[in-house]
């Protein structure tokens, strides 16, 4: 696994980084004048959807208000038991015409809550924001710029860990997010194989959401919507400096539970089942980039994991294949070296180098952390393949789970 995924990541990020460095030098020599940073200003609706998020909602709205001129905020309370609706209404009264609060009396699921918000706006661009996340000052400006290109349908943003110095669990996640999202998605977007715009912060062209009938039932509705828009023929890009600071799980148990939920519905449910058509060359909406994305997702999320399992079983059954202890050390050292190499692009793109350098100090233990998450991924994928576990997730209310289609 490490021998495949690590070099793939390192090579791709280093090449992208070198390319950007050379382009930056060329631009400086040729023009000398910096480009106008924010020149595109479509109307934007920030949709803050949540369940029992009353405690963090106020701070989230405060982080959005006043950061963009043509902005409306639609808060959807998905039948919360706490004071989320009251908080939302208080902000709607405080900022009339900017903030609107929609409250449903009982829970209907995140997808339908997002669809309610879409039905209440006419903005050009719709931005999803998690109710417990904080946006950076220019996040919305950064997200809307790629929509200048009419072929762009979705813009993904950087999700960063707000509490990365709480303990080792959050520290590892902090570095993981920086590598896999801040740099990893940049590379994926450049290669046009970016499959997801995180639900924590993502921008969508509203007309496409209306055309597609909105989000389908989750979990994994963010991945699903991104893929559906890709299949319409639109591009998915990445706004690297649109930051969304979110709270990461602080215990191993909470982290593993979160990852079990995230990993299960990706490659199996959506790629291998719901959107298998995009890998069929004879299908009407076939695109090479979509097939590459499909193969990338399936290979590195599914096949590599099972390859690891098969190899482990073989090692257990045939002692002759068992590597010597120094070989284990060698594997680990190679992984650590790959981590070190990956820090170069991270530091090149970083705008908070001091902060990110401290986060990066967790690199010697990252291979072990990734192995743990690989185990979770294998477990989740197996549960999805065998029992369609994602359809029993409490993330979706029971009355919706009971009638939705099981892909």
């Amino acid at each position: 696994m490490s021998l495949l995924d690590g070099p793939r990541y390192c090579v791709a990020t280093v090449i992208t980084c070198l390319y950007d460095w050379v382009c930056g030098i060329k631009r400086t020599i040729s023009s000398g004048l910096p480009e106008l940073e924010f020149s595109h200003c479509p109307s934007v609706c920030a949709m803050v959807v949540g369940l029992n998020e009353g405690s963090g909602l106020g701070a989230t709205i405060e982080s959005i208000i006043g950061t963009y001129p043509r902005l409306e905020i639609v808060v959807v309370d998905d039948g919360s038991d706490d004071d989320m609706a009251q908080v939302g209404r208080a902000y709607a009264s405080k900022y009339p015409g900017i903030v609107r609060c929609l409250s449903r009396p009982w829970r209907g699921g995140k997808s339908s809550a997002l669809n309610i918000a879409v039905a209440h706006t006419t903005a050009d661009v719709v931005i999803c924001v998690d109710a417990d996340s904080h946006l950076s000052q220019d996040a919305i400006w950064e997200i809307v710029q790629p929509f200048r290109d009419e072929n762009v349908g979705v813009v993904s943003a950087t999700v960063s860990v707000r509490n990365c110095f709480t303990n080792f669990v959050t520290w590892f996640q902090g570095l993981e997010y920086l590598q896999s999202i801040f740099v990893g998605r940049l590379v994926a977007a450049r290669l046009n194989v970016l499959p997801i715009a995180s639900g924590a912060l993502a921008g969508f062209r509203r007309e496409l959401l209306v055309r597609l009938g909105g989000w389908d039932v989750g979990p994994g509705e963010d991945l699903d919507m991104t893929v559906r828009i890709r299949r319409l023929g639109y591009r998915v890009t990445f706004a690297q400096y649109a930051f969304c600071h979110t709270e990461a799980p602080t215990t191993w148990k909470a982290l593993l539970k979160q990852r079990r939920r995230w990993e299960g519905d990706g490659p199996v449910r959506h790629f291998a089942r719901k959107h298998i058509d995009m890998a069929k060359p004879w299908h009407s909406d076939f695109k090479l980039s979509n097939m590459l994305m499909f193969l990338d997702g399936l290979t590195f999320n599914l096949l590599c994991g099972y390859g690891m399992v098969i190899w482990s079983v073989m090692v257990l059954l045939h002692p002759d294949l068992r590597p010597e202890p120094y070989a284990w050390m060698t594997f680990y050292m190679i992984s650590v070296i790959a981590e070190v190499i990956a820090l170069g692009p991270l530091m090149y793109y970083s705008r908070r180098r001091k902060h990110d350098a401290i986060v990066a100090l967790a690199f010697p233990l990252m291979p072990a952390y990734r192995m743990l998450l690989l185990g979770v991924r294998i477990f989740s994928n197996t549960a999805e393949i065998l029992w369609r576990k994602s359809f029993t997730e409490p993330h979706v209310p029971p009355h919706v789970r009971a009638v939705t289609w099981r892909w």
Partner: protein
Amino acid sequence: MTTVDSKSVVSDAAQRDAFGPVASQAKADGASIEHGRSKCSVPLSVFALTSDGHLASRKPVAAVATSCAEGSASLSLGWDAMPAYPSLVLGVPTLDGRTLFAGCVLTSHEVRDDGIHCEINRGGIGEIILTEEARIPTLNTEFFQYRLPCDDSVYDSWLRAGILKRTVLDRVLVCGKCRSVATFRFACRQCGSGRVAQKMLAHHFACAFVAPASEFETAETLKCPNCRTKHLVAGTDFEYMPGDNECDVCGWSDRELEQTGHCLNCDSRFAAHKAVEQELVGYHVERLASLADIADLGRSRVTAAGHVPA
């Protein structure tokens, strides 16, 4: 016509100080009955009123009630204390420090050696102002404003003289422009009209599609416009949800209505938080139930001083 009852004598120095030469006549405070009137000698204060109800002077003149009945009484005043106007307000002090007031009209007066003798009847403008109807604001149905029947200056003059006491009876929200009463209701945020209708949304569980309920309705059955599933059953397959409110007047549409005031007088509409809170001010007075009570008050003064009336 001052009658002095020899059996009961008041030697109240403070009273003499307060009422001067007139008070010296108020020696007999017990009462006897003659021609249906109780004879007494009770010191009191007299305010003269102009024809529009204002007090002629903030300072009362001292007098002594010499006899009294249900609706009339006789007063004895000093030489220089003849009221300039016939309408009067009598202030009768009680033992517990209060003063009871009654409105009267001067019917006749006679100048004698010992002062001026007056006959008064209960009534006049003073009595009108002392009634509850004149002291408590009522809603004027022409302008929809809470008003008192007299000018504010009348009440101010009575207030300064200590006859009336100001009381806040209630608080009402009124129009900021004309101070008239308004009706309040949840209405359109844009034009303030109450003619708004709430649209219903439908949420199809299976595909999470949300749209106005009318889009789900076909001639034969309920059908999801997104996934085209037919024969939807409410509660099992989909749910109705409250949607936006739409104004029939201006076409505005929003989830939240605004509490809006509509002035009943000038027809202006305004957000409820822009309404003016107005205090409904009334006036309190302690009234003398009957002029005959003056004699009773005199008797109680004597009793309190240790004398037993005959």
